[in-house]
């Protein structure tokens, strides 16, 4: 979002309270959504639940194209459309809701840095495994990504997206990595997160912050998604404090509030549909 648009949005946003009919859009849950998109969506949902702001989840096949920045998820609040967790955090802050106000400067710097760590390493690793590993791409990613479209558009779109992601990997220097190295990076990232979390309930002691939402979104999705190999899941499972962290957040924010399968992180174990 450009700076001017942000300022404009903040002004408008500050004026109105959070409406009842706020909606979050993501790709189709059963057939289309991919690991990375699901993680990002879950992170936003967790964040909004932590703030206590109600949001409904709508699944649309063209959610990626509807989004103003091309990334999912995005929320439609009032008559504004905001996408990606970073911008959504700013948006909610402008409306007066925030989780990280009580942090001091050093802690805030660390929080932002760790959020970038998740984006830089975990998210990129997820994208790599989905699109650059030929096995996963052929068996899971391409069929899922192209499922709403008819022939030959489905192949064109899937290959186009794959080419784009590979170019990005090239530009940031991940193209030369092997799958093993990527798993190593994931392990390192999880180790860093685990170190930072230590034995605390949340990353910054008693209160959850957007960092907790982001980490939960990614780790929970990795733990409950079946890919062609279980190695990714195993890497995360080896850190027990991260496991209990995910369980704790799931229990606090997802099970206790509503039980319907619409927004439930409960039946997230996709099992056969991703295999």
């Amino acid at each position, binding site marked *: 979002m450009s700076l001017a648009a942000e300022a404009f949005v903040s002004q408008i946003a500050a004026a109105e309270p959070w409406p009842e009919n706020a909606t979050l859009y993501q790709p189709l849950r059963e057939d289309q959504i991919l690991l990375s998109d699901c993680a990002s969506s879950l992170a936003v949902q967790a964040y909004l639940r932590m703030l206590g702001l109600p949001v409904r989840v709508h699944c649309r096949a063209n959610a990626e194209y509807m989004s103003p920045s091309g990334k999912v998820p995005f929320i439609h609040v009032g008559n504004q459309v905001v996408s990606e967790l970073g911008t959504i955090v700013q948006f909610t802050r402008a409306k007066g809701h925030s989780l990280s106000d009580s942090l001091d400067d*050093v802690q805030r*710097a*660390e929080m932002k840095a760790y959020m970038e*760590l998740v984006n830089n390493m975990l998210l990129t690793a997820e994208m790599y495994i989905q699109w650059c590993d030929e096995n996963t791409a052929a068996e899971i990613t391409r069929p899922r990504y192209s499922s709403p479209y008819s022939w030959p558009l489905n192949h064109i779109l899937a290959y186009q997206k794959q080419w784009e992601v590979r170019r*990005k990997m090239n530009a940031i220097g991940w193209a030369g990595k092997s799958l093993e190295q990527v798993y190593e990076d994931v392990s390192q990232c999880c180790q*860093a997160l685990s170190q930072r979390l230590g034995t605390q309930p949340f990353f910054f002691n008693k209160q959850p912050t957007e960092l907790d939402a982001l980490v939960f979104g990614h780790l929970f999705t990795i733990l409950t998604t079946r890919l062609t190999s279980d190695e990714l899941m195993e890497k995360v499972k080896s850190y027990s404090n991260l496991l209990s962290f995910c369980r704790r957040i799931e229990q606090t924010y997802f099970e206790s509030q509503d039980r319907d399968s619409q927004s439930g992180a409960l039946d997230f174990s996709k099992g056969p549909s991703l295999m």
Partner: protein
Amino acid sequence: MAAPSELFCWKGSWGLPSVDTDSLIVLAYARFAGTPLKVHKISNPWRSPTGSLPALKTKEDGSFSQPSKIIIQLRKQKYNADYDLSAKEGADTLAFISLLEEKLMPALIYALWIDPKNYAEVTRHWHAENICFPLNFFLPSRMQAQQLDRVRLMRGNSTLEAGEEAEKELYSDALECMNLLSQRLGSNRFFFGDSPSSLDAYVFGYLAPLLKIRLPSSKLQQHLTALENLTTFCSNILSLYFPDENQERIGHPASNVQEGSNFDREPYKRRKQLLSVLVAVAAMLGYAFLTGIVAIEHVKEEGLTGNTTSTDLNDEEE
């Protein structure tokens, strides 16, 4: 240990050991860890063993290119500047490096390569002067295209163009990042305790070019100079670990360097102008003679001295 490895990196200018961020990172880390390295400062990426700079060439294990891979290799050789860090500090290192790469790197690339004024006056000029002929004609523009592509892919915006909007977006992220770094550094000398680590190398690599390279238009530079602890941090590292670069420049204060470079440009400019005019005139004359528009006739003047040659300019075509 075995014979020292060789490091190929970009040349330095403006008081920096190298003008390229990645090279600076590797050089700084090597100095922090006390690695004996044979450093080759070159300005032709094609001469490096991997085709890009920086590159580490080891005797047994081959060559490596990106800073992260080079640092891992150096650690394998037991030159580890992060030895004293606690696990949490190690985690923080990873996090802050990610912050730098996501928020500061695009803005830095924009300021050096994409901003039109900076690119034309500083970056392209430096590369054109320092890369050898004939690569200096096309390599800078190719590098610029690659860097623009890279920023576009990193930000996920394939229509990003040099302009106010892109500048604002990238710079706001970068300014925030610098503020966060400043807050994290506080009043410490280095990020973790009293001895520098790899995070210090990374921060130095990104901030030092902003500090030292004089860019005509840069809000980033202004903001950085306002953050005193970061400027002290960079100058500290330069004076402690790269004292020889500073000494070279001590005798040449900034204004002299400016004039010097202007003066250097001048005779070349004149020479180039003269040369191009001569070439043009020669081409025209050559064409005229070859097509017969102009012909030299021998006219024997009777009654006068023996062989007088006079040039007759005919305007007719033969």
